[in-house]
């Protein structure tokens, strides 16, 4: 079978061969435990981890001591939010987040609500950005944490992180951000941005799966989180467990490459994305979802009205993309992110997310355009809704049989 063109880089990215190369020795001759202090095997592993920590720190503008290695962004989100809630509960129990967050944040907050937290879930505007005035109004003296993501995984919009941080700090709360989709893709600097805690993951930036970071600020203010796992007290007591040395080395290398190549790579990707998006948006009844000014360079989310996303993806089996559609009859809901933009369900059902990456070529984009156009046209030929639209029938006036 011919491999489809991979345009799902928001789900995960392929491992860069240079990252793999850096990792390999740490599976074989450099297999030591980084916590073994008494022999060379341990020292060599520790050196690898130290170098990686340095690379991670350089990418996000922090110091090495502020980095806690985790198993990924999900764990980092859990550790950051639960850890802050437990550490600061004397001060207050209120957390503010947004409805468009990843489940790793939303479900963590839901969990904390059962343990006495009060959580405000801010809605978003039509373009996917939160309303700063609404945030300001939601702040209370009990607010200990504001957790708003950097770039959204479905539509790519970038929240006004600096402004959010300023509002949080003005009211004495900490600011955390899930920057899984942003780190390595656009400049993220914890000091310029005013970030106190930040979660991200290696496998979204051409590193390996199963390794990520929680950044925890050590100065102005010194932030602490309560550990969520008991054990040997690794990572300054905040995350026990023998370090995943090859994974961490891979993450370090991935960060190094992103730092060195980001500037040119983000320009290249934005140009390809724009080509894809402008061409597809010229099709009749196609809509770009989310703010197009404040956006990650590699994401396009487009709804092709009157065709259903899952059916569409099947017609585009030459492309690996994802859709916000999920048939409600199959007890699934269409994307909650798209719905929170105020998109009607039928547009949410018609959406396709294209996530470009380091290995995406212009030839692939040209092919993606062609495949999409063909598929959309094919499915519209099959679509009773398209036919009605063409006949000028107002679909909202039809009484649909409920089921």
């Amino acid at each position, binding site marked *: 079978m011919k491999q489809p063109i991979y345009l799902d880089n928001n789900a995960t990215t392929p491992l860069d061969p240079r990252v793999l190369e850096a990792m390999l020795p740490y599976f074989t001759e450099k297999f030591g435990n980084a916590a073994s202090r008494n022999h060379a095997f341990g020292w060599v592993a520790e050196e690898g981890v130290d170098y990686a920590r340095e690379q991670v720190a350089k990418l996000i503008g922090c110091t090495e001591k502020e980095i806690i290695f985790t198993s990924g962004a999900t764990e980092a989100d859990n550790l950051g939010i639960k850890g802050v809630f437990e550490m600061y509960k004397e001060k207050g129990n209120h957390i503010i987040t947004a409805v468009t967050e990843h489940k790793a944040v939303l479900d963590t907050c839901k969990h904390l609500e059962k343990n006495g937290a009060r959580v405000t879930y801010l809605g978003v505007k039509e373009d996917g950005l939160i309303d700063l005035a609404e945030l300001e109004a939601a702040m209370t003296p009990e607010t200990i944490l504001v957790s708003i993501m950097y770039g959204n995984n479905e539509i790519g919009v970038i929240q006004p992180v600096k402004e959010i941080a300023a509002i949080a700090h003005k009211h004495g709360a900490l600011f955390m951000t899930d920057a899984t989709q942003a780190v390595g893709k656009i400049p993220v600097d914890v000091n310029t941005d005013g970030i106190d805690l930040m979660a991200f993951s290696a496998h979204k930036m051409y590193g390996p799966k199963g390794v990520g970071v929680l950044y925890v600020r050590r100065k102005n203010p010194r932030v602490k989180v309560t550990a969520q796992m008991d054990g040997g007290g690794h990572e300054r007591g905040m995350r026990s467990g023998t370090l995943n040395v090859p994974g961490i080395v891979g993450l370090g290398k991935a960060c190094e490459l992103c730092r060195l190549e980001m500037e040119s790579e983000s320009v290249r990707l934005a140009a390809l994305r724009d080509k894809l998006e402008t061409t597809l948006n010229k099709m009749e009844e196609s809509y770009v979802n989310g703010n197009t000014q404040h956006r990650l360079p590699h994401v396009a989310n487009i709804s092709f009205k009157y065709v259903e996303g899952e059916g569409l993806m099947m017609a585009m089996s030459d492309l690996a993309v994802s859709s916000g559609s999920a048939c409600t*009859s199959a007890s699934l809901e269409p994307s909650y992110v798209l719905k929170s933009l105020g998109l009607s369900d039928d547009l949410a059902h018609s959406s396709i997310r294209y996530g470009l990456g380091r290995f995406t070529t212009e030839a692939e984009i040209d092919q993606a355009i062609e495949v999409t156009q063909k598929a959309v046209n094919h499915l519209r030929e099959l679509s009773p809704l*398209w036919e009605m639209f063409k006949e000028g029938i107002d679909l909202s006036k039809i009484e649909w049989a409920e089921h």
Partner: protein
Amino acid sequence: MAYSEKVIDHYNNPRNVGTLNKDSKFVGTGLVGAPECGDVMRLQIEVGEDNVITDAKFKTFGCGSAIASSSLATEWLKGKTIDEALSIDNMDIVEELALPPVKIHCSVLAEDAIKSAINDYRVKNGLEAIVLEKSHH
């Protein structure tokens, strides 16, 4: 999830896509599903002498399994009498297309569309609508 070969075949080469004149008294039209749910199926039959279905057409907005289910349904309908058509069960479609459990309702939709098209035809021709047992969804 991987699709069965039969689903892919119907999907790539859908049979009987199109539109019959819904105002003709020989044509019955069934429109089921809703855009908000991500599935809308329109199935039409044309009935000739002796209650035999002479033509069937469909258009579907939905997943691949829904498209394949309706395509298959139109194939089965042609040449059947109305009574025979009424006995088509969604599980026959499930079996023929090897649909996995989460896709069973796509076949239910096709069964509903058949029944609703037949009822439309019956009502148009002065017959009573058949009371449909509420299918499992």
